[in-house]
């Protein structure tokens, strides 16, 4: 019924990816040298600190928390340039880990929904899932390297009666340290990190095994099995993705909390993943692969990117409006450090323009969703936009007034992007590009919207 297609990961493609990675490394090293030689700029730091203090002066508690955090960081902090590197590493890894997990999530959604249209692109999403184990190991290793700088709550003296004692964080200590003593080794936290990745990887292996066995054996048994696995995975993912968001992103701003954060991180990951799948599909189509992928499938992908850009905006706004309206100091501090604070203010607005205004206006018409030329413009915008989104979530909480967006951050993003692309395309070349005996192939071929 369908001609067998195998993606060949050509040396030229490898070379291009290597160049992106190499430029990233060069930029990163250049950025580190620049950051090291420029020093931390203490005068400037104090000026912006004063601005922030004025802004939150009306809110004594928040001001106290800020002051306290500043004290704690002076005691423990690494040099500013190193903190920048750590923050950027963590931000990039969380961002790209999400892309990998979304690959598996996309596949699981398609099975659970018994979707037929997505057969041509399911292997792309599956290939993205190969990043899960790599990001898991990176996450664990990175966590131990960056914890003292990125995660304020890891400092021991927050939990000891005395000058550094923090009642708010101490109240949350069980969430990190259970069953051990607060301030020691955060067993519960690290255990969650390991267990989440182990679960995701397990389901990835199981679902992938069914998908590839189907190529050889045919029939509907593998599809049914994959669907059951997907259903279980989706339940697990609903819980784990949310908790992962609290652990890896929200716990950076330890005092602050938002019940929207799980959804917010998920929405950001999800729309980025969809945009990435679309970009890879576009690349493959241009390279002469995916012959059965036509404008109807692209239309569905485009609708996905369009709809979930709006979904992300809805979540973003739901979080923002409630905090803005209630005006409770311990909540507003999150946006105060992001909107009115140099150097983050422009990123806050850029985030909304790249992730809502542009995709909303550019993908609104039917034609825009059906043509590669427009999708190839919008999807990279969405991917870059959500990288900014994660920058906005992670960096201000760690770097306070010393944050920057320069060669260090851009370089590391390029390195991660190159590694992720390499893993995805490499995995894509290992299995047939399109399922051979998919029970819904007929539906996908006749897909018409």
């Amino acid at each position, binding site marked *: 019924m369908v001609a067998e297609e195998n993606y060949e990961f050509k040396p030229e493609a490898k070379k291009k990816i290597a160049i992106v990675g190499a430029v990233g490394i060069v930029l990163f090293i250049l950025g580190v040298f620049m950051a090291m030689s420029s020093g931390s700029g203490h005068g400037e730091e104090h000026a912006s600190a004063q601005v922030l203090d004025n802004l939150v002066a009306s809110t004594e508690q928040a001001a106290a928390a800020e002051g306290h955090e500043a004290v704690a960081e002076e005691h423990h902090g690494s040099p500013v340039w190193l903190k920048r590197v750590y923050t950027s590493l963590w931000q990039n890894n969380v961002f790209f880990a999400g892309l990998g997990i979304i690959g598996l999530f996309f596949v699981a959604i398609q099975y659970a929904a018994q979707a037929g249209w997505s057969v041509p692109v399911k292997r792309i999403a599956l290939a993205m899932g190969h990043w899960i184990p790599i990001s898991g190991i990176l996450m664990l290793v990175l966590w131990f390297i960056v914890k003292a700088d990125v995660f304020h709550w890891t400092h021991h003296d927050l939990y000891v009666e005395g000058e550094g004692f923090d009642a708010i964080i101490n109240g949350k200590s069980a969430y990190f340290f259970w069953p051990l003593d607060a301030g020691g080794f955060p067993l519960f936290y690290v255990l969650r990190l390991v267990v989440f990745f182990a679960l995701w990887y397990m389901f990835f292996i199981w679902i992938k095994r069914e998908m590839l066995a189907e190529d050889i054996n045919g029939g509907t048994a593998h599809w049914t099995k994959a669907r059951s696995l997907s259903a279980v995975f989706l339940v697990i993912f609903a819980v784990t993705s949310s908790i992962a968001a609290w652990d890896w992103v929200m716990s950076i701003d330890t005092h602050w909390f938002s019940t929207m954060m799980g959804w917010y991180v998920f929405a950001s990951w999800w729309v980025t993943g969809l945009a990435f799948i679309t970009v890879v599909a576009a690349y493959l189509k241009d390279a002469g692969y995916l012959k059965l992928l036509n404008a109807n499938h692209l239309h569905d992908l485009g609708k996905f990117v369009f709809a979930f850009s709006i979904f992300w905006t809805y979540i973003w*706004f739901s979080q923002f*409006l409630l905090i803005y*309206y209630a*005006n409770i100091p311990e909540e507003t501090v999150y946006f105060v450090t992001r909107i009115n604070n140099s150097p983050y203010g422009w990123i806050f607005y850029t985030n909304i323009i790249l992730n809502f205004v542009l995709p909303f206006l550019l993908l609104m*018409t*039917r034609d825009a969703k059906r043509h590669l030329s427009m999708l190839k413009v919008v999807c990279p915008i969405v991917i870059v936009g959500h990288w900014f989104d994660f920058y906005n979530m992670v960096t201000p909480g760690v770097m306070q007034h010393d944050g920057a967006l320069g060669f260090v951050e851009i370089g590391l993003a390029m390195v991660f992007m190159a590694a992720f692309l390499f893993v995805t395309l490499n995995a894509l070349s290992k299995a047939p590009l399109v399922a051979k005996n998919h029970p819904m192939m007929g539906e996908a071929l006749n897909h*018409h919207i």
Partner: protein
Amino acid sequence: MESNKNFVLGVFDDEEVLLHAVEKVRDKGVKIHEVYSPFPVHGLDEALGYKKTRLPIAAFIFGMTGTSLALIMQIWMLGYDWPMIIGGKNFASLPPFIPVTFELTVLLSALGMVATFMIVSDMKPYRWPQQFDLRSTDDKHIMAIDLATNKIAKDDIGAILKESGAQEVNDKNF
């Protein structure tokens, strides 16, 4: 019976036959008034050579009307006509206006789209729609051909319809 509109109807009971018939009939130079079918037939729009619908453009304009109406209304009411301090915010502050703006955008674009569609499709109140053959709501596809827009003789059109697979060829006058 007084008749000022005369149609020839082709009755089909298979959508595959219908799709090919549409192509054949159009190839012969016959203009089709409309095809009525009990369920959506994929590819019929293309076969009939319909132009792309301009309904989305109407929807966009109605939506923008809703957006501007909502913003103007709220900014004027809370910022100028009767300024009120709510939650310590500025008189005309944007974030609290967004939900209402969103709702009015959706409402106006939805209602506007429905209204546009009904007007364009000639479905006005107190206007009984022209029903060519009630079986098009059950199990038959009805191809209606307006004699006024065709130069070909009625009998020839009937022959073309029969030739391309119509089960019956009927007359209909309004």
